[in-house]
């Protein structure tokens, strides 16, 4: 009986000694084949997915998972340290920073792309600039004829993306409600909701009565972009990569990624890559505005 007990004891000891060793091996493996979790803004989810795919193709040892859920969801997940990167289509709020500090870390912000919405009309439409207020009134159904905003005597046909596209929500908040979060203003019910960017461009291209909007990157040369002014007195600015990057165009916002403290290792390499021209080309291809200006 004695030798048997000894063997048991020895086995237990060896196993006990082994366990921590194998754990450290696991950790080391994890470092070399990094796993980055990325969660947040639904507006950015496609962009983040495209980045992740392109990056993983070049770096097969890095695995990146991307999920949506909304900017708030992403930042909350960052607080609980369940994700490495939170995507947000709005800047982090002061109370969220305070909450993060309470958790003992500082969220670090990266502007990874910009989102701008261009307001478009038929090329023959003599109207070439509008204020935010005018566009808001048009889309609420308060202005119904182009002559009321300096155009021809034509009815206005309002075009919009479907109500659950990120662009629709952003346009509703920034233009129709003019940034007032308490406002209950809505799109006029006669607004045409088209399922795709192509549908909007096609109808605006064909119809001199139409007004539409879309992410700047989706807008083609077949339609005419309007210069926009924040208020009646301020300058009218045409949207372009330059004016958006200079923060002069009123319907634009930054898209962010937040990390849990200063990023390091594979995470830092990934975030550096996102700001490189090749990754920013993906930004332009998905309808957003790159943060880097081509040729500069």
């Amino acid at each position, binding site marked *: 009986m004695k030798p048997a007990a000894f063997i048991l004891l020895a086995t237990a000891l060896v196993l006990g000694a082994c366990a921590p060793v194998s754990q450290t091996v696991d950790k080391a493996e994890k470092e070399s084949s990094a796993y980055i979790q990325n969660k947040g803004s*639904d507006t950015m989810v496609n962009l983040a997915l495209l980045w992740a795919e392109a990056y993983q193709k070049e770096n097969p040892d890095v695995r990146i998972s991307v999920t949506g859920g909304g900017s708030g969801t992403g930042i909350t997940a960052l607080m609980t340290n369940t994700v490495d990167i939170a995507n947000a289509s709005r800047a982090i709020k002061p109370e969220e920073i305070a909450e993060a500090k309470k958790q003992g870390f500082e969220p670090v912000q990266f502007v990874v792309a910009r989102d701008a919405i261009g307001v478009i009309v038929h090329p023959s439409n003599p109207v070439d600039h509008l204020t935010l207020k005018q566009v808001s009134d048009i889309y609420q159904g308060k202005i119904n004829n182009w002559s009321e905003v300096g155009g021809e005597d*034509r*009815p206005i*046909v309002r075009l919009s993306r*479907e*109500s*659950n*596209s990120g662009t*629709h*929500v952003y346009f509703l908040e920034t233009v129709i409600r003019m940034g007032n979060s308490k406002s*209950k203003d*809505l*799109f006029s*019910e*006669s*607004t*045409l*909701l*088209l*399922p795709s960017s192509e*549908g909007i461009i*096609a*109808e605006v291209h*064909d*119809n001199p*009565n*139409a007004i539409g909007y879309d992410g700047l990157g989706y807008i083609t040369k077949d339609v005419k972009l309007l210069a926009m002014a924040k208020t009646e007195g301020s300058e009218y600015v045409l949207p372009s990569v330059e004016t958006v990057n200079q923060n002069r165009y009123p319907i634009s916002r930054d898209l962010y990624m937040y990390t849990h403290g200063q990023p390091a290792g594979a995470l830092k390499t990934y975030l550096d890559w996102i700001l490189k021209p090749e990754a920013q080309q993906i930004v332009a291809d998905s309808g957003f505005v790159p943060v880097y200006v081509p040729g500069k």
Partner: protein
Amino acid sequence: MEELHSVPAWKETLVTRIIQICGYSSILFVILILYFLLSEGLPALWKADLNSLFSTRWYPTESYFGIWPLIFGSLFVTLGAGLVSVPLGIGTAVYISEVAPSWTKEILKPLVELLAGLPSVVLGFLGIQVLVPFMRRFFDLPTGLTALSGAILLGMISIPTMVSVAEDALNTVPKSYREASMALGATRWQTIWGVTLPAAKSGVITAVLLGMGRAMGETMAVMMVTGNAPVMPQGLQTIILPIRTMTATIASEMGEVAAGSVHYSVLFLIGIILFIISLVVNVVAFTLTSRKTTRSERLLS
């Protein structure tokens, strides 16, 4: 060696059972679909405020769940499609079955079937590129994305269904009926209108109902050309205004909605309404002609 002489009983039972399972499976699928629809959609009745549900404003992301504009939108476009497809569809069927010389028939029948096989998204694409701009210019409308464009496209889509069912019905009318009519001195047109069509009446009505059912359930083409504005139809001028159907609403919103939310349940409730409407159409079509079930059922699937 003995096995060659007689099939063992267990094999016989096995094959019978397998075939039996295949047969029952389709019943099972229908029941499962129904159960799924009900369990996902009925909670909408208490999750969403009933006043909101039966109002006329549809703006689900801001919690306006009025489904009336969608129901009427669907009915309106379907009726419009009927106005296009019934005369054209029945006319084509009568021509193929009664008037056309056999070589024309040989060409026309496959062509109609080809039309039936055309994916509706392709028709929708043609609609956007050709029909919508044409409608706007021709009728001088604010926009060509209207119920009328949708009705015309849906009419085109439901014509093949109507033609093949109606043509089958006309073919089953015995030749002696026509001969008797001709012998009494009736012209060809009098024979068609007074004898053949009435004799095939139930089959022709089935054809119309199935065609309309097809139009009601159509999604893609309608989503592309009707403008999808959830406006309550008001009188006849609605035909030249944009409209939003139930199918287009489900298709464009289901992809982005959070599972289990009120919006999600309401979309399933709309699915239940569509299911009920198509059930009623099919039951009516079925009871009208029990003789013609095989052909119509083949088309339903």
